[in-house]
């Protein structure tokens, strides 16, 4: 090796960026266990803000709405995204189509949001959780497509061809060969779709109806009025849910490869 394998001064940016990324979150989590009503004075350990959350009908309702949206979005994204990924990998190799399939993931969320609002309005569709689900599935599907497509390009298609040559039906091949081999990617993609929808604010803000706010919409209306111990507790719960799900996803597929 000509290049010495020591980090040297590179330790500074490496560990510096970790401090930068985790310091604000850590302070937030720490402050959520503060006994004081003041969000700034530490007066002792308490979990009372967590019971405030559980006893807040507003927040629990928002949590329920968000779960409905995230679960429905995940199901739609998995079905459409997986089919599309297989189609792109096995039946129609086209870089233009692939670009179209992945665009919803990188398209400015605000532009997607107003476009969808314009569409729903012109269709006279009443806004509610269903319109959020339709909208979330659009960009979440692109993430599933990307991850499953990535997995399909790593595995050999000759097994599928062999099954077909031996007289298996396309449907049989799909369920016996293709699906099992891409299962980890589908799980990872589904988990990420769930997290993305669970935390998504901008598109939900534009496409949700007033009577069914999702949790991010409730969080937005809370954080606009500044710091409170109740938000700290809610934020901690929401952060940990996402972190847990993404960590599980990461065990199935290297998520960093998909960005």
């Amino acid at each position: 090796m000509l290049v010495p394998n020591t980090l040297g001064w590179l330790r500074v940016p490496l560990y510096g960026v970790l401090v930068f990324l985790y310091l604000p979150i850590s302070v937030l989590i720490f402050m959520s266990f503060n006994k004081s009503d003041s969000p700034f004075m530490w007066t002792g350990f308490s979990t009372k803000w967590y019971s405030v959350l559980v006893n807040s009908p507003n927040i629990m309702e928002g949590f329920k709405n968000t779960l409905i949206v995230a679960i429905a979005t995940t199901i739609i994204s998995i079905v459409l995204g997986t089919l599309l990924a297989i189609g792109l990998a096995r039946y129609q190799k086209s870089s233009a189509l692939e670009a179209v399939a992945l665009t919803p993931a990188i398209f400015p969320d605000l532009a997607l949001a107003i476009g969808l609002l314009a569409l729903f309005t012109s269709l006279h569709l009443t806004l509610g959780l269903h319109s959020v689900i339709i909208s979330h599935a659009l960009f979440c599907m692109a993430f599933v497509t990307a991850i499953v497509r990535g997995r399909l390009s790593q595995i050999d298609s000759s097994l599928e061809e062999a099954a077909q040559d031996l007289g298996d039906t396309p449907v049989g091949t799909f369920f016996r060969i293709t699906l099992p081999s891409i299962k980890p990617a589908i799980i990872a993609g589904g988990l990420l779709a769930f997290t993305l929808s669970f935390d998504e604010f901008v598109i939900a803000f534009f496409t949700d109806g007033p009577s069914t706010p999702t949790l991010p919409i409730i969080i937005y209306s809370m954080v606009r009025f500044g710091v409170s111990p109740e938000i700290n507790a809610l934020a901690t719960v929401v952060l940990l849910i996402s972190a847990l799900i993404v960590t599980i996803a990461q065990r199935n597929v290297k998520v960093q490869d998909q960005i």
Partner: protein
Amino acid sequence: MALAVKSEGRDAIKRRALLSRAVFLVPGLTYITAFMLIPLGFIIAYTFLSRGTYGGIEFIFTTENYTRALDSLYLGVLIKSILIASTTTILAFFIGFPVAYAITKLPTNRQNLMLVLIVLPFWTNFLIRTYAWIVLLNTQGFLNKGLINMGVISQPLELLYKPSAIVLGLLYAYIPLMILPIYSALVRIDPAMKEAAVNLGATPAQAFRQVTLPLALPGVLVGAIFVFVPSVGNFIVPELLGGGKTIMVGNLIRDQFLKARDWPFGSVLALSMVLMLLLLFFIQARVNRRVLGDARA
């Protein structure tokens, strides 16, 4: 007879292939067409229409929305947004590149762990990550308290509610999107290329500048797009960390749709964002082709 059977078989196979292709591709592509391409068409159409009295649009053709966007007031907002997003992107590069480079020097299992740690916050709630900075930087917040207790300052510093706080918030939110593509570009570089440069008499610094840096350029560009695009259209960070004092184009678009109810004008602004994205991808594709072409030559 045999021939007929054979061609019938071929037809059946062809039909089956066509059917599978349709089964796999049509649902997803229809969904994208219905909920992305058609809405995009709506936005483009709206830019040429007039605003309705109570929001929505009226079908009267006009180009006034475009001339209005060129008004110095709105052009100023657009330029300020581009400046803030560019500053964020440049800072993300100068911090992100050494980080990505450092990760490539780690043993493989440590590399994966580090990448997970860097990407994990990105997948969590954006509002909360932005809010966390208010907790930290508030005049009564953690940092000010700490600095006062240590005797570094006597009066709390006003760290929030200015453009630098917006840049900080955006940098915090999107820096993983700069680090990951640069890392992927760096790990793909064949170590032999660098060794060859050194063997031919290049100093390590020269090898870095003339081999590593150009080959990492495609990754840098992808990272730059991934940081710039969501930054320029962001309305949450300017509102929460900028205190609503600095208006960015995202705030303007949000207000045109939800407050001022001028959808055609909001559409022009949104379209400008989409066009910026397309322009950046165009540049990236061209640079990519040149770098890869050079590498092959």
